[in-house]
């Protein structure tokens, strides 16, 4: 979109062209609004974290061709409450779950191809629908829809400042590759994601530890708009240390590692910190229910590093990440290679091995292999580490997105610090996910919240 062709004023200006921004833009355009979408990335790397997604969680009363069975609203809510420990805004959580029914229909109506999940990485086929081609396929389809609906799109651009008077948004200052422009808007939607790529900001909550975090998500999510809105008086919500973070390979690129850096060997072996000690039950529950806690667990370890240790018995039980494991013929040699005191690691492994009681091993379900008298225990999939060669994956916390965000209501209106809501400022996606997620994560929930709040903010913009 050339700057010369832009209007002076739009019905709604949307910052962020990921799933939630696109859902907002498409809904608003369907309501007849003239929409400007401002996207940080270019045509190849557009769409923020959406390009690292692949499936969406949604409530459905029966198997529907995209899923293998029913997933009721009650069950969805129970799952959400179990990961957040009940720390959520119930009205918003219920709203997302209620409207999540429509997600596959919305997707299909706009040209997205949903597939039968016959071999999803997370085995979530009853609860989640998988789209053909993953997140970038989804983005390509939505961007085509947006273009067909006449939505103006500015690539490689970002909202640098906004003009607010009282409780009304008036104007956005946008930096584009061809210079800075000011555009008036009758409404404004913030859909620009979290601040996971802003290490300095994360440091203000986590301290120097944040230097050792790896950003799985988009390098563009630096939270600049979130900060501007908070400075202008928007009310914040969510735990500032809260984040969706998993264990990733320590050798991963600093940004944009996405799915391929995630290490899934954890439940089948043991995890030790830099001192060679175990620190958490690796087999606490099914991996899809536990993978999302390991980022934070490792973030709390010394030097924010840990190692998944396993032997050749389990090599074919998990999907290999993008890097090969470190390999050795003895635990001693392995310890030397990963920089742990060999005597300590040998002791940890032998203590673990001698406590293993294994009656029935089942990699696909909660089995009857656990440790006896070990602290911390390993509750499932406890097999002795004794068949050479031995392997290790070095692990770091890999942040997908942060939970600190803007407080919103059921109409997606952004709350003000002094009380009340802005009349025409709305938020959708990761920038407001802290309203619902305080800790933990459910696969495919990010897209569900983004889709529903995207629609709501688009609809609310039409009511301004």
């Amino acid at each position, binding site marked *: 979109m050339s700057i010369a062709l832009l209007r002076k004023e739009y019905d709604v200006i949307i910052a962020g062209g990921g799933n939630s921004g696109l859902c907002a833009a498409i809904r608003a355009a369907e309501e007849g609004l003239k929409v400007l979408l401002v996207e940080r990335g270019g045509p*190849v*790397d557009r769409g923020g974290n959406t*390009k*690292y997604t*692949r499936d969406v969680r949604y409530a459905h009363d029966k198997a529907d061709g995209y899923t293998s069975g029913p997933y009721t609203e009650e069950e969805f809510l129970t799952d959400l409450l179990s990961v957040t420990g009940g720390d959520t805004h119930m009205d918003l959580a219920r709203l997302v779950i209620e409207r999540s029914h429509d997600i596959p229909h919305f997707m299909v109506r706009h040209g997205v*191809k949903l*597939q039968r999940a016959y*071999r999803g*990485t997370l085995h979530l086929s009853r609860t989640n629908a*998988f789209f*053909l*081609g*993953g*997140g*970038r*396929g989804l983005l*390509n389809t939505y961007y*085509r829809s947006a273009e067909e609906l006449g939505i103006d799109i500015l690539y490689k651009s970002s909202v640098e400042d906004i003009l607010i008077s009282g409780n009304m948004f008036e104007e956005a200052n946008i930096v584009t590759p061809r210079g800075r422009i000011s555009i008036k808007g009758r409404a404004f939607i913030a859909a620009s994601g979290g601040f996971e790529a802003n290490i300095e900001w994360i440091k203000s909550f986590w301290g120097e530890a944040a230097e050792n975090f790896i950003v799985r998500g988009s390098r563009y999510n630096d939270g600049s708009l979130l900060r501007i809105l908070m400075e202008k008086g928007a009310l914040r919500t969510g735990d500032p240390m809260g984040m969706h973070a998993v264990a990733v390979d320590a050798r991963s*690129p600093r940004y*944009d590692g*996405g*799915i*391929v*850096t*995630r290490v899934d060997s954890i439940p089948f072996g043991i995890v030790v910190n830099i001192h060679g000690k175990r620190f958490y039950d690796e087999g606490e529950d099914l991996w899809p229910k536990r993978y999302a806690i390991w980022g934070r667990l490792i973030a709390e370890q010394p030097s924010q590093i840990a190692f998944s240790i396993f032997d050749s018995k389990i*090599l*074919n039980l998990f*999907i*290999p*990440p*993008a890097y*090969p494991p470190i390999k050795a013929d003895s635990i001693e040699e392995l310890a030397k290679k990963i920089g742990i005191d060999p005597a300590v690691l040998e002791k940890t492994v032998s203590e673990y091995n001698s406590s293993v009681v294994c009656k029935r091993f089942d990699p696909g379900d909660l089995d009857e292999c656990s440790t006896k008298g070990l602290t911390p225990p390993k509750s499932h999939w406890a097999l002795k580490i004794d068949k050479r060669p031995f392997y290790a994956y070095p692990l770091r916390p890999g942040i997908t997105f942060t939970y600190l965000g803007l407080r919103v209501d059921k109409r997606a209106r952004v709350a003000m610090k002094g009380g009340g809501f802005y009349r025409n400022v709305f938020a959708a996606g990761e920038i407001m996910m802290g309203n619902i997620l305080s800790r933990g994560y459910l696969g495919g929930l990010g897209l569900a919240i983004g889709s529903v709040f995207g629609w709501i903010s688009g609809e609310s913009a039409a009511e301004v």
Partner: protein
Amino acid sequence: MMQDLYREASRQFIVCNACRYCEGFCAVFPAIEKRLWSYEKGYIDYVANLCHDCRNCFYSCPYVYPNPFSINIPLLLSSIRVESYKKYTFPEPLARLFFSRPLLGGLLVTTISLALMFLYVVLVGDPSRLFKEYRDPGSFYEIIPYWAIAFNGMAMLAYIITIFGISSYRYWRSIGGISSKPHLGFFIRGLWDAISHRYFRGGDAGCSYPGERPKLIRLYLHLSIFIGLILAILSTITAAIYQEILGILPPYSRSSPPVVLGTAGGILIIAGSTGLLYLKQKASKELISRAMIDLDVYMLALLDLIAITGVLTMIFRETIYMGLIFVIHMGLVVTLFIIAPYSKIIHILYRVLSLVKYSGEKIQSRGT
């Protein structure tokens, strides 16, 4: 260089296997997922020849440049396909020569074939027969005698079958065949996946060719050439039946099976090859190896010219121009026969064999 190519394939396959977002598009990704930790050369060749250059994976990939993983499966696999054409096509030194310089080799064979054809007409018999009108049944065999056409045709067919047979055997052995008991069902299913153009559909989305927006146009154009070639073969067979069994000599009436089939086939080949050439120049050159572009362009142009001269022969068959057009047509057909094993035609062989292996592996894994 070749070592590096296979090492790079392993690297990219491991990233794809860790991601798996593309598994719904085609056979390539499920085949990659069959292995977990390493990929040997034969297996990489097998996967590369499953790829139909549909490109959905590239436009859906979050790991394309500028991402540090820098994944580009279409470019990688097209480079490996050319390597596999060199490696398995018999005899290897000849294959290496032709597949390393596809345009040069192609133009050389074309020039030599046309030159020999014209030398024959000029040196053997009266050269003026090139510009005569032929109306009586069988009279145009004065230009090139029927026995010469039939004999050389048979000889070249035998040559092609031999080379194809040896090359197939070499390829099949290297990719490891089917790990379970071979079964006719695998072969039929693999063949049908090829004939039905299943993987030109991009997992029901269409294919990102020539640009990102998924379309089915490439399927229709490729299918058009495929059906056109079958009609051309049927035209030749019916013509042989007319002459050898019914004893009727050409030219045949415009409504006779040989002419109708030949004309329809010719038009389909012209439409398909012209269309694919047009798409090819629009499509991104960053997603395909240089040698593969040359192989494609040469073969499409050759088929296009053969079909055009074939149709023109029919149109001008009662004029003095017919002789000249006919000799050019025959020269191009001879070119196609000579170069077939060392041209894009060879992709049929390795593609079908890979699809047969894939169907075998898939059926085998069912129920486990």
